C-alpha cells in the first residue's frame, strides 16, 4: 500500500503567473516529518505557513499503526483583509498521504467589498480597484475565490474559517473543491472538516442581506488515481441572489429603497413584519429567503479523523427536544412552548447523507450566536482540539 515517494519540487520554482493564485503541497518526509514542498502565491493573495509545536496524542485504538503526523497550519490572507470587485483568488492545496493541515483566516471574516453601483456606466477603473478592468461586465465585477484541495489517503484537512461578510451591493462567488482518494477504504480514507458560512453583512452599519449576489459551492469528489475517473460524493450549493438584474435598471433603485425601508422596520419594530402576499414584489429577496437568520452555514464532516465528531453532531441533533411536544408530567396544564425557530437562537439540522458524510446546516440570529454555538459544540466534543490543537478553533 506504500505510495511511491513524490519527487520533491524545488521551492524556488515559480509557476505562478496569475495574480491571486497560490499553490501548496504538503508532503510527509521520513520518518514522520511534514514538509511544505511547494508554497507559492501571488499578490493580492498571501499564504503563511506555520508549524506549531502541537503533536497529536495517539489514542490506544489508534487510526493506524503509526502515530498521526503533526498538523501544519496555513493562514489564508489577502491584502486589505478582503476581496475587492474583480479579485480572483485561486488556492490549490495538495495533501500527500498521512499529512494533516489546518487552514484558518487570521484576518477575521472574509470581507466582500461592494461593487460600485456605477461601475457599469463608463467608469473604467473602479475606486480602490487593483487593476484596470473592462466595464459593463458583471462577471468581472464579481469577487471570486476558489479553493481546490486534494486530500491523500489518511491525510486530513481541518478548515474552519471565519464567515464571509458580503458588504452592501457586493457580488461574490466561491467554489471549494475537495478531492479524496476513491480507492482508500476504512481507516485509510481521507478526512475533512469544512465550514462555510455567510453573514448578513455589517450589522453595525445596519446591513441586512443587502448584497447583490453571494454564491458558495462546496464539492467533494472521489478520484481514482489509477483510472483517473472521479465521482461526485457531495455538493452543497447555496445561492443568495437579490435578482435585481431581473427587474431591469429602473427597479434597482426601487428595490434598494425598499430594502432600506425594511431595515428601518426591523429596527424600529423588533417584530416579525407580516409576510408579503404572493404576487407582490418582495422587499428584499434574500432577506425573505433567509429569515429569521442573520447567518447561515454548512459544516461538512467526513473520514476517520472526524467520525466521532460526526457521530456527536448526529447524537446532539437527534436528542434535541421534539418540536411541539408537551411536558405531560408537569403539573402545569400548559408547558411553556419554547420559541421553536430559535432554540438558543440557532436552528440547525444534521444528517448522515451518503458515503459516511455528516452534513450540518445551521442558521442563527447573528454571527456571535453561531460562533458561540459551533465553537461550543466542537470544544465540548474535543476531537478537533485533540487531533489538530486548540489553534484549529482559532476562528470560533
Amino acid at each position, binding site marked *: 500500500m506504500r505510495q511511491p515517494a513524490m519527487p520533491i519540487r524545488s521551492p524556488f520554482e515559480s509557476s505562478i503567473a496569475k495574480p491571486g493564485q497560490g499553490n501548496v503541497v504538503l508532503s510527509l518526509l521520513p520518518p514522520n516529518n511534514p514538509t511544505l514542498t511547494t508554497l507559492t502565491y501571488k499578490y493580492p493573495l498571501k499564504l503563511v505557513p506555520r508549524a506549531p509545536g502541537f503533536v497529536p496524542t495517539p489514542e490506544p485504538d489508534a487510526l493506524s499503526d503509526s502515530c498521526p503526523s503533526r498538523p501544519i497550519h496555513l493562514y489564508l490572507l489577502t491584502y486589505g483583509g478582503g476581496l475587492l470587485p474583480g479579485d480572483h483568488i485561486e488556492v490549490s492545496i495538495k495533501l500527500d498521504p498521512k499529512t494533516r493541515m489546518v487552514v484558518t483566516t487570521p484576518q477575521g471574516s472574509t470581507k466582500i467589498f461592494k461593487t460600485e453601483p456605477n461601475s457599469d456606466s463608463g467608469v473604467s477603473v473602479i475606486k480602490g480597484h487593483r487593476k484596470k478592468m473592462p466595464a459593463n461586465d458583471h462577471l468581472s465585477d464579481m469577487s471570486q475565490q476558489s479553493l481546490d484541495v486534494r486530500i491523500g489517503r489518511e491525510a486530513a484537512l481541518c478548515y474552519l474559517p471565519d464567515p464571509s461578510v458580503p458588504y452592501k451591493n457586493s457580488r461574490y462567488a466561491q467554489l471549494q473543491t475537495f478531492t479524496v482518494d476513491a480507492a482508500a477504504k476504512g481507516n485509510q480514507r481521507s478526512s475533512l472538516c469544512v465550514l462555510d458560512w455567510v453573514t448578513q453583512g455589517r450589522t453595525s452599519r445596519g446591513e441586512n442581506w443587502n448584497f447583490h449576489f453571494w454564491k458558495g459551492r462546496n464539492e467533494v469528489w472521489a478520484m481514482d488515481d489509477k483510472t483517473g475517473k472521479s*465521482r461526485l460524493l457531495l455538493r452543497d450549493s447555496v445561492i443568495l441572489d437579490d435578482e435585481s438584474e431581473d427587474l431591469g435598471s429602473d427597479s434597482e433603485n426601487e428595490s434598494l429603497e425598499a430594502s432600506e425601508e425594511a431595515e428601518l422596520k426591523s429596527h424600529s419594530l423588533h417584530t*416579525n413584519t407580516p409576510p408579503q402576499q404572493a404576487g407582490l414584489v418582495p422587499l428584499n429577496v434574500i432577506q425573505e429567503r433567509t429569515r429569521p437568520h442573520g447567518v*447561515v452555514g454548512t459544516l461538512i464532516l467526513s473520514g476517520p479523523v472526524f467520525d466521532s465528531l460526526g457521530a456527536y453532531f448526529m447524537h446532539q441533533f437527534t436528542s434535541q427536544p421534539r418540536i411541539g411536544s408537551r411536558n405531560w408530567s408537569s403539573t402545569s396544564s400548559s408547558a411553556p412552548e419554547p420559541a*421553536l425557530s430559535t432554540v438558543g437562537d440557532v436552528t440547525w439540522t444534521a444528517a448522515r447523507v451518503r*458515503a459516511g458524510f455528516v452534513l450540518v446546516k445551521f442558521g442563527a440570529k447573528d454571527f456571535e450566536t453561531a460562533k458561540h454555538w459551533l465553537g461550543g459544540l466542537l470544544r465540548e466534543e474535543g476531537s478537533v482540539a485533540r487531533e489538530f490543537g486548540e489553534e484549529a478553533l482559532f476562528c470560533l
Partner: protein
Amino acid sequence: MLDMLKTPEKDLQLEIAQLEARLGDLRSQLHVNYTTPLSSHLETKSPWTMSSELYKNNDSYNTFQSTALRASPLHALLLLSDSALPLGSFAYSSGLESYLAHNKPLRTSPSAAFHRFLKLSIASIASTSLPYVLAGYRHPETLETLDNDLDASTPCIVAQRASVAQGRALIGVWERAFRASFAAPGPSTDAGARVAAGAIDDFADALKSNLEVEEEYDTVPKGHFAPLWGVVCRAMGLDLQQTAYIFVLNHAKAVLSAAVRASVMGPYQAQNILASQSLQDTMMGRIKREWDTQVEEAGQVVPALDLWVGRHELLYSRIFNS
C-alpha cells in the same frame, strides 16, 4: 392540432377535449399571459388551446380508442398531471408541516404564512431540482450520473427519502403501466423518446441489481425523482416546456394539497390559489430563470428551507413524511 382534426382520429380529439374540460378552467387559464420567449413557444404548441367547438361537441365521449394513445402528447400530459398518479406525492408536504411548526406566531395569519412558504418552495424546487428535470429530458442517457449528482446535492435525509420514494414509484408506474403504451415501437415514436425509454429500463435494471448497502465511496443508484421525471416525460412524448411546467405545477399542487390537509386553508381557497395568475407568473418566472441552468450550477436559494425540511424529523407529531 387543427390538421389532426381532418384525420379519422377526430373522435379521439373530441374525447381528449372532453377530458381536458374535466380539468376545468384551471388549465386554460394557466397559460393566458405569456410574456417570455419560453412561454410563447409553449403557447404555439400548447395542446389545450383547441377550438371551442370541440368543447361543445361531446357526442363521442364514450368511444375511447386505446390505439390512438400516441396521437397527441395531450393524453400523456393529462396522465402525468393527474393527482391520482400513484407516486405517493400526497405523503409529502415538502417542508410545509415543519415550516408551520417553526413559525407558530404566524399561525395568526396562516394564509399569509402559507403564501410565503409556497413562493419559497417553488423558488427552491426550481433552483435545486428543475435543472435535473431539464437535463434528464435533454440527455436521457446521462440518467445515472444525474441521479448520483442529485443524490450528492440533497442535503438531508428527509428530502432524500421523499425524492427517492417518488422516483422509484415513477419507475414502477412506467414499468407496470406506461411502458406498454408508450414504449411500443411505432412510426410516431421519435428517436429521443426511444433513447429515453431505454435509459429508464437500464436505470431500473441498475437499481434492482444493486444491493441497498453502500460501501464507502461506491455509491449505488438511488432513483431520485427529478431526473427520472425528465426522462419519463421525454419517453412519453411531452415537449420540454410541458415537462418543466408540469413538474413545477405538480409540486405546487402537492404543497397546496398538503396545506388543505394540514388545515391551513379550505379546498376552494387552495384551488383559488392554484388557478391564480400570480401563481402562474411565479412558476413561469422560476422556470424561465432556471431554463439554462446547468446541473452543476443548481443550488439552494432558500437556505431556511433546508433547515425546516431537515428538522421535520424533530416534530413531535407528524402527518406527512416530509
